[in-house]
């Protein structure tokens, strides 16, 4: 089977996500589609999958023009897709998710659960996916959820399988296992599209590499003939620095001291399990871990957003254990939250209003009752310039800025004051390479200015690039505390997967 996308254009309000894109996919080979965040990779694949409709262009299957009105048509044509954000119903079982839409039924449309169970079990065994058909999705770790997604695709007997950034949620070892699955799919004659912005992975598994930049195809590459640096330049359009530029850390006194921290959810389930660690002034401590191992809750507990059941949190000797977010802020702690659209910004507010979102109550901006908007606006103007936020004006709603510029607004707001501690959660998730470089530099600057920095990221590369010391979280516990220079991606990966644990000193 050969799939061809010819001249695909897709416009969203204010953006051309795909601009005259051409792509060919063949059975029995792995095509890597690379491009930085926002390049239009997901959009292109969603068009192929019938989820979006192209404004221009045509899809051909074995030379015949086809139109996919809906995913149903694409599935029927033998296309399967594992989405970047998993498409699983959390309250359903594995089997229910897999058979959804092609349910085995009895009389009156009754679900034949036994049959569904057997079918799912059979395919699971056949590909060595080790899935329990009756497990509830919401109780499964993300790595397993991904296998459910793969099972869904196999269940529909797809000939071309698209994986949209599948490795983002996996540990290095899980990535290896994933590549094995990809190889076996390829061996069975299927065609694979592997989307990523991690170039080493593309070079490692792909037979062909196609590069997308700002919605346009900028070229194809043969993995045997191109190296990472050249590929990165192709992807970004200029030479890229692949490592963060920083001096060795000069840790001083302990700033953040976390002792025996215990956090539970409302039903009493443990989320952060008696955690101990220290962050010193002048060092960056990175917290690595697969998504969903308590990092989010740890940060929430440290910043006053989540109730602490036991243990203590101190910043420079001041107890912040049961403090409110406001008190944490006033203790000279900056917090860059993990989801900028959900909590870091008010999208409908102007850039100026967002620049004071966490600081409006400071003496500088208000007398406790009235706001001093003149000062707020002039501060915002200064910060926009200083932090290189690309915005038409400070009166522009922040929600209309690009992801990278939104993140810069947050970074400007949080880092532009005297700080003892910086807590940055997923500081560069979903932003372009230029903004990533810029934000990383700002984080290093904060360290060099004497703040203690805690960076939490599920991107192992980011932790390894920024951190002076690496902590690994697994199931709510800190299972490793490693000096950056004395560890490797592989070792951290083993800790992330729970395959290895440090004995408590």
């Amino acid at each position: 089977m050969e799939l061809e996308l010819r001249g695909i254009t897709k416009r969203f309000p204010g953006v051309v996500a795909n601009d005259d894109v051409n792509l060919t996919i063949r059975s029995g080979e792995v095509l890597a589609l690379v491009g930085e965040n926002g390049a239009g990779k997901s959009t292109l694949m969603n068009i192929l999958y019938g989820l979006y409709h192209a404004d221009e262009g045509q899809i051909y299957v074995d030379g015949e023009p086809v139109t996919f009105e809906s995913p149903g048509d694409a599935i029927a044509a033998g296309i399967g897709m594992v989405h970047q954000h998993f498409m699983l119903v959390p309250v359903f079982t594995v089997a229910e998710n897999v058979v959804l839409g092609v349910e085995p039924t009895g009389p009156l449309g009754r679900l034949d659960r036994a049959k569904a169970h057997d079918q799912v079990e059979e395919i699971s065994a056949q590909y060595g996916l080790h899935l329990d058909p009756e497990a509830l999705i919401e109780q499964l770790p993300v790595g397993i959820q991904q296998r459910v997604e793969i099972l869904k695709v196999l269940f529909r007997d797809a000939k071309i399988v698209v994986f949209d950034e599948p490795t983002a949620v996996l540990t290095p070892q899980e990535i290896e296992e994933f590549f094995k699955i990809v190889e076996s799919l390829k061996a069975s004659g299927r065609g694979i599209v592997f989307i990523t912005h991690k170039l080493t992975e593309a070079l490692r598994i792909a037979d062909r590499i196609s590069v997308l930049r700002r919605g346009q195809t900028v070229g194809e590459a043969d993995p045997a003939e191109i190296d990472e640096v050249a590929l990165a330049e192709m992807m970004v359009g200029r030479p890229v620095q692949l490592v963060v530029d920083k001096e060795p850390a000069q840790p001083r006194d302990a700033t953040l001291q976390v002792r025996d921290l215990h956090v539970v959810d409302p039903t009493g389930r443990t989320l952060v399990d008696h955690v101990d660690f220290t962050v010193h002034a002048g060092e960056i401590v990175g917290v690595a871990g697969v998504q969903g191992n308590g990092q989010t809750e740890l940060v929430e507990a440290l910043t006053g957003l989540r109730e602490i059941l036991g243990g203590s949190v101190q910043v420079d000797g001041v107890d912040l254990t049961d403090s409110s977010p406001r008190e944490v802020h006033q203790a000279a702690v900056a917090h860059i939250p993990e989801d900028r659209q959900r909590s870091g910004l008010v999208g409908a507010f102007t850039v100026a209003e967002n620049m004071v979102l966490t600081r409006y109550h400071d003496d500088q901006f208000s007398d406790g009752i009235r706001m001093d908007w003149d000062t707020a606006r002039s501060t915002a103007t200064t910060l926009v310039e200083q932090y290189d936020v690309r915005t038409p004006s400070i009166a522009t709603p922040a929600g209309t800025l690009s992801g990278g510029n939104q993140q810069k607004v947050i970074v400007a707001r949080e880092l532009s004051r005297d700080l003892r501690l910086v807590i940055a959660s997923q500081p560069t998730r979903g932003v372009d390479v230029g903004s990533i470089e810029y934000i990383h530099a700002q984080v290093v600057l904060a360290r060099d200015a004497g703040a203690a920095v805690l960076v939490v990221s599920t991107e192992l590369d980011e932790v390894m690039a920024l951190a002076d010391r690496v902590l690994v979280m697994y199931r709510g516990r800190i299972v490793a505390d490693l000096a950056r220079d004395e560890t490797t991606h592989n070792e951290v990966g083993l800790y992330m997967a729970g395959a290895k644990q440090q004995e408590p000193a």
Partner: protein
Amino acid sequence: MTDTATAPAPGDATPDDASGGLVRRLLARIDTTNAVVLPLLAFISALVIGTVVIALSDIDKLKEGDIGGILTTIKDAYLALPKGAFDGWRPLNETIVATTPLLLAGLAVAITFKAGLFNIGGTGQMLMGGMGAVWVGFTMNGPGILQVPLGILAGMVCGMLWGIVPGLLKARAGVHEVISTIMMNFIAASLVLYILKTDAFVREGRNDPISKLVTPEGRLPRLFGYLDRPELRAHIGFLIAIAAALFFWWLLERTTIGFEIRAQGANSSAARYAGMRPGLLIMTSFVIAGGFAGLAGASEVLGTQGRATQGFAGDIGFDAIAVALLGRSSPSGTALAALLFGALQAGGQKMQVDTGVPVDLVLILRALIVLFIAAPLLMKAIWRIKAEGAIAGPSFGGWGS
């Protein structure tokens, strides 16, 4: 889909002098579309559907096939509306009288809209406010300079106390305000009926639910009292309403609490992250809302009616929702919308007298206006407007807590 919602491609936002002006002009145009054109079209669309309802419900003429007669009725009805509202001193006064509580109650809804909440409880808050005000109104006997402010204050405080309940229930127990405020309305209605029958309230010699008369000193002074024309009923409640609208503007645009309320409404989890206290803000918004609605009640009993009855709040609490939506929750918009609805109300009375078309028509118009205002996309589709930018109607998310 979080990372794809609104962000344009990186680099697109580079400031560009040539297009800067254009962008600004474009933005300005979208704003007029949203703030002026769409509400106007919503109003016109509602009138058109109202026409159909009048025509279809004219059974007798329909049976006779008297199309001309039906058209005359429609014409007379719609002509009676502006006539009854603006044609002369008396209609103008009636419009002001009707506008006053609509504006106050409209603000009560608008403040909660700003906080991302839906206050359907204006009626109940008004009723309780009215009870507090009328009690001061008939128990005290002057001097007016003391009694009037006290009566108004009592109304406001009672409204606030009633308003805090849904706020508390939402903040503490996660009860959706749509359910709680509706229940509170029913409860208030029964409670008022009960209170009006108690010895403390019931008028001497009556056993129907009607309160004692507010003493002359306790009545809100009439605006045109100096003209010595008793039929000009407009009273200083109108000035209170305008002052309330100004206060509303100041609160939201100039104070920290206003900033917090707006942040809470636009993105509750960002507000929490920013150190604001959502629970407190929910309660504050509802207390302020109750205060506005309580003022509306006070203005009705102390100004317009001089007594309290079971139904003195009428449908004002619901009209207020249409008012706030139509006015897009801004103080000036809400004031204009209240004026429009006040005029409709005043004109509707005349329409009923002159043409026999029931004032209930206004009820239908109100619902349609709400619907059309909330559906900018529908308005655009019907009237074939092409405006750039995705504009959304007001939104309250779901039931989740």
